[in-house]
């Protein structure tokens, strides 16, 4: 009993538990349909590429996982969420394609500028967006959600403007480098893995993670003990912008076109959800990056499962909403208090009986 309790108290319990639950649903569904019960886990090689539902989850979940890294840091340092990441994704993709195809060109068969200029441009503009958000939050003390609201609505609009309100196709094979395959592995998986490893290394071998947490726990105390709280918050927002840029370029490269209206649509919600699902408090402070990453892939697994169950993409939000509510209600302080009281009462009763 106490072992079970200590297990459920672990921060990674929630994301891993939900992941297992999703997989179980898949197995049950496959058995009900008469497929092989473990077809969810089957990985094969088709036309020289890896394929399988698990690979699909990993592949499609790359963008959310990358966003989740930045979002975790932002939530930890400023106790607020960056809701502009989806728009910034679309903006960085649009800017990159605009640079590569030339302004006003809807279909390009050759680059107007070298590829690296386009990619760098996309990432830079995303970083600038992050800095803008960070400046508003850190130096003007504006609520994070409200500060990022500006770019939430303007980012996509500027992207549309840069692309002249059309979908810009860049039909050059080398542009697909971020969204295609390396050998038999889908590149997005590698990009996500690369970002995660870099983030983990930085947090492990520098004091940045500690700084961020101390700012998140108590901004004033951190400032008095000598941290430049504002600059640390600014840095987290810039990292978040950077992540959004990388995710945006990946998403753009996947479809080798800048579909500004749809890239990253509602992605900010998935990113926030993965942070919450990862057992991180949305009130800032301590964070656990691995929880967020597992949360991100769990969300993708939920989405993929829903499609497999035949729920249309328009109806899927209903179930996502239920998952969100369930998680946050279970995490809410009053509910936790209630359960604590219940267990205490039970223990008291048992003690009396004994």
């Amino acid at each position: 009993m106490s072992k079970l309790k200590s297990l459920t108290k672990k921060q990674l319990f929630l994301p891993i538990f939900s992941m297992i639950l999703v997989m179980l649903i898949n197995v049950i569904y496959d058995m009900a349909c008469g497929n092989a019960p473990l077809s969810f886990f089957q990985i094969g090689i088709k036309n020289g590429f890896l394929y399988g539902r698990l690979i699909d989850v990993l592949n499609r979940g790359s963008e959310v996982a990358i966003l989740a890294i930045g979002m975790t840091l932002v939530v930890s340092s400023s106790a607020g969420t960056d809701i502009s990441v989806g728009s910034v994704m679309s903006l960085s993709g649009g800017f990159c394609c605009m640079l590569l195809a030339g302004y006003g060109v809807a279909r390009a068969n050759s680059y107007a500028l070298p590829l690296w200029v386009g990619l760098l441009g996309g990432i830079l503009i995303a970083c600038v967006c992050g800095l803008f958000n960070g400046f508003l939050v850190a130096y003007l003390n504006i609520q994070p959600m409200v500060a990022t609201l500006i770019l939430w609505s303007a980012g996509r609009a500027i992207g549309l403007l840069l692309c002249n309100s059309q979908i810009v196709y860049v039909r050059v094979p080398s542009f697909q480098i971020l969204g295609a395959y390396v050998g038999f592995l889908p590149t997005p998986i590698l990009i996500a893995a690369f970002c995660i490893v870099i983030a983990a290394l930085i947090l492990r071998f520098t004091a940045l993670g500690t700084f961020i947490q101390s700012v998140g726990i108590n901004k004033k105390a951190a400032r008095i003990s000598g941290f430049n709280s504002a600059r640390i918050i600014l840095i987290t927002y810039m990292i978040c912008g950077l992540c959004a840029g990388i995710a945006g370029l990946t998403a753009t490269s996947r479809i080798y076109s800048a579909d500004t209206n749809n890239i990253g649509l509602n992605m900010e919600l998935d990113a926030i959800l993965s942070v919450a699902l990862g057992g991180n408090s949305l009130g800032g402070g301590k964070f656990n990056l691995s929880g967020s990453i597992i949360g991100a892939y769990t969300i993708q697994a939920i989405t993929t499962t829903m499609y497999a169950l035949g729920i249309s993409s328009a109806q899927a939000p209903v179930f996502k909403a239920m998952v969100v509510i369930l998680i946050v209600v279970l995490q809410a302080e009053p509910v936790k208090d209630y359960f604590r009281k219940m267990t205490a009462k039970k223990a008291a009763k048992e003690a009396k009986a004994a």
Partner: protein
Amino acid sequence: MKKTKLNGNNVLLLITIILFAVMYLGGCLVYSGKGFAHLQTFLNILINNAGLICVASGMTCVMLTGGIDISVGSLVAVDCMLLAVGIEHWGMSSPVLMILILAIGLVFGLAQGYCVAYLKIQPFIVTMAGMFFARGMTAVLCTDQVSIVSDPLFTKLSSTKISIPFGGYVNKKGIYQVPYIRASVLVALLIVVVIFLMLRYTRFGRSLYAVGGNQQSATLMGLNVKSVTMRAYVLNSFLTSIGGICYCLNTMCGTTQQATGMEMDAISSSVIGGTLLTGGVGNVIGSLFGVLINGTISSLVKTNGKLISSWANIITAILLCFFIVLQAVFAKVKEAKKA
């Protein structure tokens, strides 16, 4: 001394009204050849934004308590879809559906308000879930676009023109045009007046300000903070439902992608109108002008004809940025004065 002091909050409201006047008069001067100066252009802004006015009024109440509600756009979409599907597929009459929609608004607000006030979950997260849920429910009702044609009462309500006795003009064909408004505008303006009076003179209205200003002192004053917060969300969802009906009277159809981004329009209208995002300060009249500014911008972009429509979004965002920064500066000045 009877003269009211011009503090930072009144300045914000004043700036909003001046901005609207300048923008509108500027539009009249620049686009007078395209008929921007006619009274009807102004009335059209009201007609097109009747739903948004209702929603923004509700949003102001929630923002006064220091919360936020991003589910409103999706709730409007559900309302429209329910009206459309109810009338066209289920053969229900529109009054029954309207009552049903208002009831749904109350229940929706109650659930969200309970989570925010009693379970102490961040409003943004709760209403984000509400937004997902409502948007998904729209698709569960129907995934196609459904136009409302077969309910005579609803069609009549939508097409009724209420003439205004002045401000008419003779158009190019030599026919005298009488300016008009729709029924939804009356509803919207009525709501603004009622909310204005409520915020000013009722116990509930004053406690909204108190809760938003400082929760602890509100508790010490003997206010039931939780109940007030919850009722703010209920009121918002109820007004949003009325707004949804007004919105549907304009569009006369239900689609899954309806009113996307309306929550942001409502929030930006309130902010532009001088409602502080930290709560405690704001006015529904300001929100009305915020909506009018939003409407004027999109109307100007449309009248220009050459600009890409995303310019409207960009200009609104720039204005929003301007006002948020202004609020932050005012807050800093206030703090400096205290110290």
